[in-house]
């Protein structure tokens, strides 16, 4: 009897809810994702390699990863500036701008896509003055880059904001009392303690940009080898019924996403050991 009761828990429903959770998870997430990986197994390593190294695929991956990296860098810098302004200063409309940061999260990507295109098109509000300066944004890689900056900004802001808010004011006072000027305090004391959060925000923004589809394709121009992102190439291959090609690109992108998840997890673990939870 005693062994039979050993596993009981105080609250009811564990077996039932866990069973339903695993079933639902398998049906919606695990089986479909497993299908994706199984599909690539139908390809020989040679074929797989050939697809990935074809000029168009390679360029699409280069464009996606390269521009995402650049956009995440901009987000890192601008995100830090925005967080600093929102957390440390008071100015009219601060709360409104704080809320505005979430718009790229909340706005459906297709809406963001058409809006950014309209804004930066040759006759658009911002496109026209830029065209005067000889800068063409819409339907060029610059457009892709700007769309990625748009969707990435909340990641850095929302990751760093709580950490900056919780930063113990005493460390700044300690630095000042030890004779550090403001410049030293900010760059040697405050920013270093934000590093895990900054890197996490950077990684999240980067991952989102790599996978982004809706907000990018309208402004991208979608010229093969020039302004064609990897997710779009997947869609094109699918519409051509070249499932294998689509799958191969998808697997590479998925693996990249897993690497980023892993990196973010490590970053957060690192942050936890660095700054003990109070």
């Amino acid at each position, binding site marked *: 009897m005693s062994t039979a*009761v*050993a596993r009981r828990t105080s609250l009811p429903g564990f077996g039932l809810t866990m069973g339903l959770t695993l079933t639902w998870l398998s049906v919606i997430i695990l089986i479909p994702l497993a299908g994706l990986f199984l599909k690539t197994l139908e390809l020989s390593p040679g074929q797989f390699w050939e697809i990935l190294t074809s000029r168009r695929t390679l360029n699409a991956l280069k464009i996606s990863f390269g521009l995402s990296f650049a956009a995440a860098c901009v987000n890192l810098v601008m995100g830090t500036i925005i967080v600093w302004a929102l957390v440390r200063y008071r100015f009219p409309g601060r709360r409104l701008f704080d809320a505005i940061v979430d718009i790229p999260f909340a706005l459906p990507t297709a809406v963001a896509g058409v809006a950014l295109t309209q804004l930066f098109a040759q006759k658009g509000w911002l496109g026209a003055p830029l065209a005067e300066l000889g800068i063409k944004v819409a339907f060029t890689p610059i457009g892709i880059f700007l769309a990625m900056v748009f969707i990435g900004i909340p990641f850095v802001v929302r990751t760093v904001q709580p950490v900056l808010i919780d930063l113990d004011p005493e460390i700044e006072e300690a630095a000042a009392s030890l004779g550090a000027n403001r410049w030293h305090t900010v760059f040697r004391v405050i920013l270093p303690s934000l590093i895990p959060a900054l890197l996490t925000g950077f990684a999240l923004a980067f991952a989102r940009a790599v996978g982004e589809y809706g907000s990018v394709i309208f402004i991208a121009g979608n010229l093969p080898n020039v302004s064609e992102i990897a997710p779009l190439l997947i869609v094109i291959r699918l519409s051509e019924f070249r499932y294998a090609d689509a799958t191969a690109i998808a697997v590479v992108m998925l693996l990249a996403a897993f690497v980023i998840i892993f990196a973010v997890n490590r970053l957060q673990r690192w942050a936890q050991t660095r700054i003990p939870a109070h």
Partner: protein
Amino acid sequence: MTIEVKNIVKKFGAFAALDNVDLKVGKGELLALLGPSGSGKTTLLRIIAGLDWPDAGEVRIDGEDALGHGASERHVGFVFQHYALFRHMTVFENVAFGLRVQPRAVRKDEATIRARVKELLDLVQLDWLANRYPSQLSGGQRQRIALARALAIEPRILLLDEPFGALDAKVRKELRQWLRSLHSEIHVTSIFVTHDQEEALEVANQVVVMDKGRIEQIGTPGDVYDNPATAFVHGFIGESIVLPVEVAGGSVRLGDRPLNIAADGAASGASKLFVRRHDMQIGPAGTGSLEGAVRHVRSFGPIQRAEVALSGGEGKMVIEIDAPRDRELQAGEIISLQPRRYRIFAAQD
């Protein structure tokens, strides 16, 4: 109602939270489970309540096997350490909860439920708080509401987990007396868990001292204080002076100094001598087993507490003794000490 616990074993990984625990609780008792944190007392309480399950053993409530039933079927009143009041319900609804969730067939009608809740709130003297929410109550009030809620289901037994742990010292004292008088009024078999020896000795009529998942001693408060069964109990309950001594053939030595006390059947070898602070007889130098220089004296109330550096023995040993005020001690004075009452236990490590 009686409670019987037999050979309970509970492991968390490799750590044995309960190591073969046996316990019988008689009808109408108010029993304290006393021990340091990690001694297994809360785990034992939760197992009796049906909130945890043992890896082996038996729990019988009123002779009936309890492990076959979940907490909801055991009719056990449980008062949680942090009260676990339902924060979205008023005090009234909190107390009424147990009556409202009864199966339709046995559920009382609304008027009966209201009357019963009113009665319980009167019992804990908080009827004027019926429409407040838990967040609007003080700690002591929450504690009493939690108790009223547990009593609402007319529990066969009442279990309280560190009932005064989260309260400040003054409220704690008041509630102790209140709990004791409440118990003598309703007389339901009760167990409470505490790490505070004073609390256990003052409130309970039976005390179970636990350490490292084992029961060290079961007895009345007087018993466990005056006749500690083990070195742990002696050290844990009341303040003791502990001296490392050597027992050889019925005589006791501290270092090279023979002590003029009987070994009381203690086995030969390295041992520990336990003496209560107030059980040291003070005399002029040269009249007792131990001798030392008074280093520091503080007086408060009826006693004076002196720090005495013992001479003889290895290294410097400093002990604290309590002496009555009728013999004034002076710093620097050399005095002799003779244990009046003492216990000798084999040194364990």
